[in-house]
């Protein structure tokens, strides 16, 4: 669905690259996570894929279209939800969707259906300018699926939403993916990535460090950990210890033998910990 080969981008063409020699592939029907800290080049890459930024170097094919010479009809097949919501504040939610759907050549979804889907069913006649941040975000999200895209770009789709709405959005993404929609998901949020993505790419400083499924990454990088809380010399101590490393194993045995253990449980490494291990960088 997406093929990227040797993609580089320099905003000021001054030899400083926001994205450098990036290559990856997104298969039809998968949810592909694009993860990385702020300034890593996620938006830059996504904007090149959607034609918002001009392709400078490399070969990019999106939904079968060569991005070097974008054909306008490509936009009938893709949808994009922006990180910063962008709707007409002087128009109602319904007018926003009504207007937008008329710009496509393909069959579009009913505005009321979409509003119901994202929990704005009874807010259709309110001007978007009077919406809260989360409501605007949901409207932007709803708009991105109005043309029944086969390739769906989502930039931080759940950021800033309250947990129950975020859960709804996740369910919508899962349902669309089940219907065959390919999803390109950009996020900081490792929990969402872990939950939704078939594969993730870790990008740092314009460079992809790792691409694999969350499960494989955990097997590869995630040691099994044990968290223990124990009392030693009247002090409560918390510690995370590996069950593989020799030093940690020995220490664990000592603690069990000599201390008063309060709690102890095993823990799987999170995607976040793997990210730090795999890239040597934090996520913020």
């Amino acid at each position, binding site marked *: 669905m997406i093929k990227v080969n040797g993609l580089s981008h320099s905003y000021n063409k001054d030899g400083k690259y926001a994205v450098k020699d990036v290559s990856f592939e997104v298969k039809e029907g998968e949810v592909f996570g694009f993860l990385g800290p702020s300034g890593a080049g996620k938006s830059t890459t996504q904007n090149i894929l959607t034609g*918002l930024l001009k392709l400078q170097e490399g070969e990019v094919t999106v939904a079968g279209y060569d991005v070097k010479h974008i054909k306008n009809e490509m936009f*009938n097949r893709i949808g994009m939800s*922006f990180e910063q919501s962008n709707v007409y504040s002087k128009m109602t939610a319904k007018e926003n969707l009504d207007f937008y759907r*008329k*710009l*496509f050549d393909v069959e579009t979804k009913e505005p009321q259906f979409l509003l119901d889907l994202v929990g704005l069913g009874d807010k259709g006649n309110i001007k978007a300018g009077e919406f809260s941040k989360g409501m605007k975000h949901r409207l932007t999200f709803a*708009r991105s699926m109005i043309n029944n895209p086969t390739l769906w770009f989502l930039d931080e789709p759940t950021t800033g939403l309250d947990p129950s709405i975020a859960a709804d959005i996740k369910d919508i993404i899962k349902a669309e993916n089940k219907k065959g929609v390919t999803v390109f998901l950009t996020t900081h949020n490792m929990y969402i990535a872990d939950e939704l993505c078939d594969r993730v790419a870790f990008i740092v400083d314009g460079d992809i460090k790792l691409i694999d499924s969350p499960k494989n990454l955990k097997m590869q990088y995630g040691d099994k950990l044990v968290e223990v809380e124990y009392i030693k010399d009247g002090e409560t101590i918390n510690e995370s210890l590996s069950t593989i490393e020799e030093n940690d194993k020995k220490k664990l045995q000592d603690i069990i033998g000599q201390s008063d253990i309060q709690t102890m449980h095993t823990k799987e490494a999170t995607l976040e910990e793997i990210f730090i291990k795999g890239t040597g960088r934090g996520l913020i």
Partner: protein
Amino acid sequence: MLKKMFTIFRRDAKVNTREFLTAYIMLAPVIFAIAINLIAPGINDTTVNLALVKGDDEQMVAYLEDFAKVDVFKDVAALEKRVGRRDDVFAIVPDGDDYYVLQQGNEVEGLEQYATMMLTFYQEGMRIEDSTAIIHSFDRTVPPLKKLLVNIFMMFSAIMGGMLIAINIIEEKEDRTIRAINLTPISRTAYIFAKSVIGITLPLYGSVVLVVFTGFRGIDWGQMMVLIVVSTLISILVGFTEGLKNETVMDAAGSVKMLFLPMAGAVAVAEMVGEKWQWVAYWVPFYWTYKGVDSVLTYNANWGTTLLYALFVVIISIVAYLILMPGIRKGLE
């Protein structure tokens, strides 16, 4: 693609009716027209309406028709009734062998002398051919102030159209919606054209309102439209440029307003400066629009000069487009 462009235009127009400033701009031509009628009333001031008794003196009717609008009535009573109505009509009433001028008393000053004079001229047997006066200008049958105001306010409407464009661009910038539009099948060129439509429709509707409300209905509408449409080119361009350059509606409107300066300058040159110095305003597209519209409003324009003036405007605008267009395309990315 045309349908999508119309969708974009309709959205702009709809949103513009919702805000005070933009709704006011859309209503401006109507307000201008009313103002002109208050400041410079009666387009037909210098044409006298005369009423005569039917069959009285065919020769006199024929003579007077060269100078005034003549209506005939069946008898003196009908004449008197006609004069008694609100508008300015003078009756020429037979009185034995002679005639006298009958008026209601509320007519515009000076007209009555004009009526009397014509009657005298006829009785003296004077012909136009007898006149020794050299006629400098025929175009003064239209009140100059009114014509000037209508002309200027038409160009105002064109500039206002540019202002609406700027305001609509700022709206898209503030709401960051251009990015969303860029992800639809509409091409950037089509989008720019669609956003320009309001810059043409407002001046067109504005000039129709002005012409109709102020009584210039008999003009050549085709020539009028050509001149108005070409005069919008420059304000559309400035509207886009300022819309992209500025961050707030007020700043943008203020910058577009700067167009009033060259416009006023061009009018001043055309009206008050000698032939020798006219060239100083040649670079201002409004100069040519003004001259063209002026001829149209005095009913003595011809297609040759109208198209020539329009061509000058187009050429100047194209030069401006070549300079500013790359910036506009880039600004919309």
